[in-house]
């Protein structure tokens, strides 16, 4: 039992904006009142619901490949030394599993979603998530280049495709469906990409990226998944890709969708020299279409490691930069590319990217539909979120930074003209309440009675400039996990999983395909529920 008294509470889900209010906790949940137990005197502090990261890359084969490829980063990274409470690990651009949990919790985040999981290597992802302590977790499963699904779309068998998608989500023990460069990663296996939404994907005659996007969004809604289709659009990172992104959003009309790392998809211009921000055009469309949510995918200057299932883009990035490149092929399902990268403030393209991320966060009106991410570790590491929050809250600081950009870059963005400043309530919305709602996690991101007791408590007036860097207390599931800057308790997080309804007969359709096309036998393919610790399964009855 625990009581937090005297703190200013920011709880957007319940419309509470800085009201001094006591919070009582029992059995891991927020309750009306408790008798006895520890009392935290939170006078002079602000109380937030624990952060929810809707899009990050923290576990799995691709991330591990990136870790192996970047020993130079590990040598510079913060080391977590072994203590009786804590395991050893490394921070840096691609933190190790245990360190990932410590770093997220140490920043006040208590729920994270690993955004790109190939089903074929989902076992690996779950093993790593099990070793990512403290935070609760969920996975989005890669589908938009799965050749069994695409073959069914080619044949016009939408109903069977829906059964297959449902079966695959449960096989991977996933929480949502992810689409990355729909059709493009399949085309990459032919050395090609999918640049236009309306042209057939290489190897198919009537499957286009638009068809994949519309079909998956429809299937996800039909299955009643709590989180809509999680979409990484075609033409990521390319000047002029605003046209593709707007066209994609039109394709999605009538369905829900979450637009991932929208910053990477909001560029104008014809080439790298003429690249400019088109955040305003994206925000204008987005503001008028409530079926969509998005996360920023903002970048910060400094070292990053780009990791994505978008294989063709990574090859292009390697050719552009000359940096080392890793490429993985995941049989019939997807691909993966890795390129370590450094964003430089003096570089025109990077400066525009930096501005676009912030512009989107400022130009999209509704904080319930745009969330704070850096597409970790692609745009910047998640542990740098407080730097972005600082920029969102202070227009003058932003303007000073804009003045330091190359003159050409300043003329390609409107960031310096934006006066909006985020309030603390807005910050609580984009870091917690909003993403929790978009994920359909009813007990996260809020501080009402019955909610999970996940809280972050910060000094109202911090010593340094960054309010959100060092929480005074972090409480996860009712336990104090961070206190006075130290990890105090090593709790295990839960894993959120959905079980959509499907007809068991679909297995008889899939089994021969596996025997013919996969290196893994059908029986060995699904992740067994027993392998997961703390599985929190939600049965879905949406069918048809």
């Amino acid at each position, binding site marked *: 039992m625990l009581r937090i008294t005297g703190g200013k509470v920011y709880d957007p889900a319940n419309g509470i904006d800085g009201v001094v209010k006591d919070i009582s906790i029992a059995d891991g949940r927020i309750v009306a009142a408790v008798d006895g137990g520890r009392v935290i005197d939170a006078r002079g502090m602000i109380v937030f619901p624990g952060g929810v990261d809707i899009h990050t890359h923290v576990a799995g084969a691709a991330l591990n490949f990136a870790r192996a490829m*970047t*020993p130079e980063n590990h*040598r510079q990274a913060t080391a977590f030394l072994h203590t009786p409470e804590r395991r050893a690990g490394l921070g840096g651009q691609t933190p190790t599993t245990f360190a990932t949990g410590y770093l997220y919790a140490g920043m006040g985040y208590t729920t994270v979603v690993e955004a790109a999981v190939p089903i074929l290597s989902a076992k690996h992802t779950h093993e790593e998530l099990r070793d990512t302590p403290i935070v609760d977790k969920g996975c989005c499963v890669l589908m938009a280049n799965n050749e069994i699904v695409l073959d069914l779309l080619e044949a016009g068998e939408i109903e069977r495709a829906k059964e297959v998608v449902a079966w695959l989500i449960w096989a991977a023990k996933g929480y949502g469906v992810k689409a990355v460069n729909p059709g493009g990663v399949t085309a990459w296996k032919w050395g090609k990409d999918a640049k236009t939404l309306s042209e057939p994907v290489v190897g198919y005659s009537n499957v286009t990226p638009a068809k994949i996007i519309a079909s998956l969004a429809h299937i996800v809604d039909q299955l009643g998944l709590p989180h809509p289709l999680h979409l990484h659009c075609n033409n990521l990172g390319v000047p002029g890709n605003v046209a593709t992104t707007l066209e994609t959003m039109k394709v999605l009309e009538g369905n829900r969708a979450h637009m991932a790392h929208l910053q990477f998809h909001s560029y104008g211009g014809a080439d790298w020299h003429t690249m400019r921000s088109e955040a305003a055009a994206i925000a204008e469309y987005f503001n008028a279409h409530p079926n969509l949510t998005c996360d920023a995918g903002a970048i910060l200057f400094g070292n990053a490691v780009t990791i994505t299932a978008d294989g063709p883009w990574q090859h292009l990035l390697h050719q552009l930069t000359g940096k080392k490149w890793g490429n993985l092929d995941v049989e019939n399902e997807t691909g993966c590319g890795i390129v370590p990268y450094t964003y430089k403030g003096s570089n025109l393209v990077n400066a525009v990217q930096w501005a676009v991320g912030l512009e989107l966060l400022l130009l999209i009106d509704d904080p319930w539909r745009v969330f704070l991410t850096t597409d970790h570790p692609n745009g910047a590491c998640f542990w740098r979120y407080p730097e972005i929050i600082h920029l969102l809250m202070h227009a003058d600081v932003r303007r000073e930074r804009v003045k330091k950009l190359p003159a050409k870059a300043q003329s390609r963005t409107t960031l310096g003209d934006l006066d909006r400043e985020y309030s603390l309530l807005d910050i609580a919305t984009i870091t917690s309440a909003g993403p929790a709602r978009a994920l359909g996690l009813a007990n996260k991101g809020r501080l009402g009675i019955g909610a999970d007791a996940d809280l972050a408590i910060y000094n109202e007036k911090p010593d340094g400039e960054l309010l959100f860097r060092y929480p005074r207390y972090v409480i996860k599931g009712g336990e104090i996990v961070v206190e006075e800057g130290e990890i105090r308790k090593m709790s295990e997080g839960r894993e959120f999983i959905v079980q959509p309804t499907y007809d068991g007969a679909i297995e008889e359709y899939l089994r021969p395909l596996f025997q013919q096309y996969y290196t893994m036998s059908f029986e060995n393919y699904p992740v067994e529920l027993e392998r997961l610790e703390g599985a929190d399964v939600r049965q879905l009855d949406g069918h048809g």
Partner: protein
Amino acid sequence: MITLTLKERTAVPLEAESLSPDVTANLSCDAVRALPVLLGKHPYRVDEFFDVEGEAGDELAIRGDAGNVKWIGRGMTRGKIAVEGNAGMHLGAYMKGGTIEVSANASDWVGAEMSGGSIHIHGNAGGQIGAGYRGSPKGMTGGTVIVDGAAGLEVGMRMRRGIIVVRGPVRDFAGLQMKGGSIFLLGGAELRTGAWMIRGTIVTLKEVPLLPTFAHDYDGNPVFMRLMARHLQALGISIPCEPHEGTYQCHSGDSAVPGRGEILVWRPVG
């Protein structure tokens, strides 16, 4: 000056990055005794391995067989370390300034990824002098390393700027993937010198076997060699550059990458 005398050589390497003038300059002798070192994964105090004497200052002397003491002078920016005996791996790695002098031999990774300062080894050195660590895009970006004896593999691997001089013979892959800077091999080299070099200069006073991806460019006495000779003279190293002494045969490569580096082989008159 603080003097540290190693009591006995440890069975496993001792990691002693605290042995740097940047750390010790303003510390009392007692505070230096209490500095941390790692033996395996366990932390210990400096005085569990060293006798410590003297007054604080910018100078540090290390005596005894420190051939198993790693990371001496790591990242130092000023002052001087005199190692009277052997030094272990990673001596002066990441250093930015100051000087290190070793009276006997040093191990691998001397001056790895250094950006300034100078290191002088009077005995032999190991491999990877001034190199980039595994995964790093570049090695040393400035400073000078002089080895009076022989050196090992991958001398100057991925170096970007700076000067390495080795008086004795070096082993394979000198200047591997070199991106700039200069390597002077007064005693020649074994195989694959300059493999994958993109830019930079390797000067050898003895014949070396050249890779087939290096093309003969010209024979002569380029002006920059005279400038280099004068610069090295100040460091106590003499290299020939006058036409009456001989000529340099210049080869460019490595065209396998493709690169625009050069290997200059000295051909004395007669």
